[in-house]
Every structure is written in structure tokens, then in C-alpha cells.
């Protein structure tokens, strides 16, 4: 009797024991997976923090030079660290260059991208679509340096044919190239947003007797507004940070001007110039690169923040 009970106990014990072992190993595996996922998540956080630390410490280092004052940095429109003894670090000269290129680029990329997206999503027959979409994706895959050379060897001569007062390096030429560069971003994200609008809404619009244009303008675009705005903001951030095209095509004369025929310098363009030239890498000029990078970071960060707010504001939720 006791023998049998014992053996039953033992058997039950063994079963539980093996189960416990299983459970433990399952738990171990689960926690391993969890740790792995956390590590992956933390990686981008760690990189962000590392970049921020570099930016902040180096920017502080820059403002530590006696020739530099915060008032001059934010209060002047002259940026001439390399022209001689009297240096002025007025960031607005570079910011205005960046804004000019971004404005020109967005004047091309936003309307063209959105219209293309509407065409692809709402109007294009599936055969045309299957042919056009890959072409747009190829455009997205072209290296930016190629766009830069395209601007210099194609845009600039064409612009000079129209008006010979265009300088060889000018804001317009680079701006157009950046616009083309941003086109696929705007187009494919906006198209995703349009496609995400439920079919029932579209059909509802037709059912009420609307034309295709009515449906697009009055129903689909408003419904997709949040996604479209995100696409726009992403494109703007891309244009602000674009480096290679402007370094090649826009010149390196930092100045505040409204004339897109002039040569300018963007924030990214200045950083490239500092990172590669004959300038001493221990001096104030080189250090100023980090202050410019910090400013650029603030700019892209604020675009992202605006994006978050706008998305929340315009978000239309459908099931």
C-alpha cells in the first residue's frame, strides 16, 4: 500500500519536477528574449544620448572660446570664421541658407508628391501604377551625391540659360535637386495614407453622387490629412538635413539673401567644409561645427515635435 502510494508520489513528483524544470527553462528563455528586446530598444536610446552628449559638450566647448558670445551667435547675420582675424559667428547666415534650400525643395516636393500620390492611389489604372511605383522607388534609391552632381551639371546650366545672372553655385539649383530627392518620400508616405482610408468612405462618396474629384477633395484627402502632414514634415526634416547635394551645388558663401541665384551655405554645407578642409582641427573654427550641429538638431527636433502635435490634432480614427 505504502509502496504503491510512494511510487505514485514519486511518479507525481517526477512529473512535477520535469514540469518545473520545463517551466524554469521556459522562463529563462522568455527572460532572455525579453532582455534581448530591451537591449535592442535601448540601443537607439543609447545612440541618441551619446549624440546628445557629444553635441552638448562640444557646443559648450565652443561657447567657451573668448571670441565667441551667445549674443553674437544668435544676434548676428554674419558668419565668417575663415575670412580673417575678425570673426563673427552669426548662425542666421547659415540658417537662412538652409531655410532657402528647404523652401525651394518643398515648393517642388510637396505639391508634386501629393498630386502624384493622389494619382497613383485614386486615378491610376493598376497597370500604370505597377509601372510608376517602382520608378519612384528607384528615384528614392539614387545616392544623394548623384543628385548633387545632377544639380551642378544639369540644373545650373539650364538655369543659366534662362537667366545668366544665376551663379555657378546657387541656392535654386541645389534646392530643385533636394526637392526631387524628397519627392519619393512625400509620394510614397502620402500614398500609404490615402490607401489607409477605408474603402467604405470612398464608396459612400460615390454613392452620394460625387465625382472622383469630389471624393478625393472632400472625403479622402481630409480623412488622410494626418498621414499626409506626417509625410510633409518628414520631407521637410529630410531637406533640412540634406548634406551632399547642398555641399556640391549651393556654394559656400554664408549670407542672408532672398535671391536664389546667389550662392549660399547651409548648416550642413558648413559642417562638411569644416570636416574636410585644411582648417586646423583644434581651433575655434572647427569647434563652431558642433554649435551648428546643435542648432540643426534643435531645428529637426522642433519639426518632429510639431509633427507629433499636428498628427494628434488632425487624427481621424476609423476602425
Amino acid at each position: 500500500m505504502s509502496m504503491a502510494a510512494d511510487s505514485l508520489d514519486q511518479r507525481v513528483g517526477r512529473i512535477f519536477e520535469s514540469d518545473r524544470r520545463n517551466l524554469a527553462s521556459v522562463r529563462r528563455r522568455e527572460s532572455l528574449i525579453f532582455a534581448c528586446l530591451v537591449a535592442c530598444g535601448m540601443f537607439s536610446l543609447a545612440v541618441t544620448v551619446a549624440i546628445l552628449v557629444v553635441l552638448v559638450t562640444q557646443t559648450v566647448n565652443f561657447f567657451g572660446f573668448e571670441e565667441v558670445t551667445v549674443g553674437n551667435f544668435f544676434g548676428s547675420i554674419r558668419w565668417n570664421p575663415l575670412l580673417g582675424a575678425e570673426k563673427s559667428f552669426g548662425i542666421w547666415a547659415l540658417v537662412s541658407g538652409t531655410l532657402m534650400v528647404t523652401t525651394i525643395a518643398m515648393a517642388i516636393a510637396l505639391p508634386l508628391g501629393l498630386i502624384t500620390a493622389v494619382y497613383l492611389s485614386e486615378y491610376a489604372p493598376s497597370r500604370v501604377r505597377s509601372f510608376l511605383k517602382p520608378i519612384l522607388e528607384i528615384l528614392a534609391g539614387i545616392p544623394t551625391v548623384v543628385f548633387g552632381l545632377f544639380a551642378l551639371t544639369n540644373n545650373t546650366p539650364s538655369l543659366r540659360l534662362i537667366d545668366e545672372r544665376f551663379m555657378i553655385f546657387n541656392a535654386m539649383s541645389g534646392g530643385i535637386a533636394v526637392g526631387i530627392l524628397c519627392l519619393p518620400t512625400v509620394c510614397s508616405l502620402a500614398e500609404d495614407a490615402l490607401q489607409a482610408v477605408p474603402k467604405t468612405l470612398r464608396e459612400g462618396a460615390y454613392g452620394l453622387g460625387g465625382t472622383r474629384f469630389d471624393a478625393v477633395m472632400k472625403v479622402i484627402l481630409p480623412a488622410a490629412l494626418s498621414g499626409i502632414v506626417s509625410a510633409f514634415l518628414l520631407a521637410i526634416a529630410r531637406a533640412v538635413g540634406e548634406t551632399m547635394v547642398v555641399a556640391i551645388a549651393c556654394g559656400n558663401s554664408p549670407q542672408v539673401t532672398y535671391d536664389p541665384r546667389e550662392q549660399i551655405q547651409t548648416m550642413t554645407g558648413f559642417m562638411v567644409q569644416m570636416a574636410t578642409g585644411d582648417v586646423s582641427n583644434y581651433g575655434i573654427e572647427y569647434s563652431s561645427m558642433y554649435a551648428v550641429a546643435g542648432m540643426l538638431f534643435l531645428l529637426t527636433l522642433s519639426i518632429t515635435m510639431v509633427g507629433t502635435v499636428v498628427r494628434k490634432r488632425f487624427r481621424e480614427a476609423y476602425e
Partner: protein
Amino acid sequence: MRLSFLFPVSLLVLATSFGCESKPSTNAKPANSSGALASDESYEVNEELQGEVKIDGSSTVFPISEAASAEFSKRFPNVSVTVGSSGTGGGFKKFNKGETDISDASRPVKAEEFASALKNNVKMIEVPVAYDGLTIVVHPDNDFLKEITVDQLKKIFNGDSPAQKWSDVDGAWPDREIKRYAPGTDSGTFDYFKEIVAGKTGSITDQLSASESDNVLVTGVAGSVDAIGFFGVAYYEENKDKLRAVPVINPKGEAVLPSMDAIKSGSYAPFSRPLFIYVNADSMKRPEVRMFVEFYLDNAPELAAANAYPPLPMEVYELARKNAQELTTGTHFLEEKEGKMEKREGPIAEVFVSENRYEG
């Protein structure tokens, strides 16, 4: 969804803007490795010497180092010599961390670069390798600018009140606006011009078209009779048909064109500057680096001339060779004044002498 992916993207945008991209420079010309070298007999093919020589720095010196590397590799096929061109500043940054054995420089080492090297215990041997003449160029049809003085250049290029019209500089010159072209403001060439025209305390006007690409300067100056520009003599040699070099009045009052002979003899003043390689003294203890530097110096006049750079006076090469052989470190272009390191001015033959050596 969208929300979470925007942030990393904006970071990416930022990260790319940090400049892991290279400058669109057309300065680097292909090395001219044809032509017999003086040392053809003295260096026999040697397959026993092995190792690596790492060079980086100025894109102006690049063609000379590249040619030296090509010729050296023919005789020492098992030594790999790599030559980069990340600019004089970027070159010193690597050199000062001990990452490269030799740093090409289109200007003498600056005080802060020298100090940083000392701090990292990197000792440098200064080796001038060639001259570069800064050429003042105008449109071939420009018939009024027969010659130019440094003072006139100051009037045209100074930062305080630059002349707007040619007639502001000289009453006999036309009443038309001056168009100025200059190499990239970050270049050693610009730095040198600035030193002569603006001095230590002045500035250059920002009313100029500055470009990294020498091609653009050629196009710009060749495109207008009212244009004036400057760049290295090697580039002028290649574009002689499109531009006219303006003779510069030297301190003796003679109008001199930047010919090879004029630069060599020192009569093209003050616009001729030396180019350098700086050798890490520790690297110099390695046989392959020692052999390479020796080879470089033996052939420097030919290598320089093949790339349109005038060679330096023989005594400069002799002292450089002596310093290299004896591992004599330091620079001749800095001096201590009131506790601060300052640049020493003057023609290279006068500055590059043993007494001026400064070890910090």
C-alpha cells in the same frame, strides 16, 4: 506607428550631416608617374622590405605623395603605401593620434596642432617637399591689369572697405564692378593669401565667390573680363589657354610671372609658399617608413616638377634630409613669444634653418 519612426529618422538625418562624406574636390590630379627619376639606379627592386606606410592630409600635396608612392611601390613591391587626402587639418588630426605615419600639409603646422601632438607624445619631423606658387589670374581679354602690387590686392580683397570698382583701385582702370573669385575659404591656399593680403589682424572681404572646385574658379574668371581670382600654380598651368596670369610686383619692384624658375629663385614673392610632409618620429624608426622618406626626399624635385610644383632650394632639401636621418623633431615655423606660440614669417630658405627649430 508613424510617431515612433519619425524620431529615429530625424536622428539619421542628423547623423548623416556629421560629415562622413567627402568633399567634392577636383584638386587631386592623377599622379604623373612617368618620366625617369634620378634614383632609378640607386634604388634596386627590393622584395624583402615589408610593411605599411600610411599617409593622409592636404589635397594639394596629394599628387606629389601619390607619385612618390607609385614610384616607391615599383621598387619595394611588398611595402604598401596608402595616401589619403582629407585636408591638412584632418590629416593632422589623425597624425596627432598616431594613426598615420606621414601627414601632408599645404601650410606649416599651426600652434594648436603642434601643441596637441606634443600632448599625445607625437613628435614630428618637418620635411618641406616643394613650392606652390599662388597665381593671380584674370580674363585673357582684360587689357588694363598689366601687373599688380600687393597693395592693390589689399585694396581689392580687404574686408573693411574693399574697392567696389576697378576705378577705385586705380583711376586709369575702367569704371566697372570687380568680381572676385577665390578657392575654398578652408583651403591652405586661401589661408596663405589671407596671411599676405590681410595679415594677422585683418580680414578678407566676404564679397567673393569662393569655391572648393578649381574648375569653377577657372569658369568664373574665364567668364568675365572684370573677374580676378587666385589659385595654385599647378592648376594655372593646366588652364593657361583660358586665363592670363598677372605679374606680381615683388619687394624689389620687379613684375614677375609665376614661372617655375621665378618661384625657384625666390623672385616670385611674396606669393610662393612651401608644401610639407610631416613624419612621425616613432614611425621613422620603422625601416619601411625610413626608406620611403629617404626615397621621397631623393626624388622630391622630380616628383614635384612632374606635377607642376617648383622644387625647393637644394639647401632646404639637405637640411630636411639631415633632420630626417637624425630624427631631429620640431617645427621651424613656430616661435615662442611672450609665452605663446606664434607663426614665424619669411621665405622658406631663411626660416627653415637649424637655429629656428622649435621643439615646444
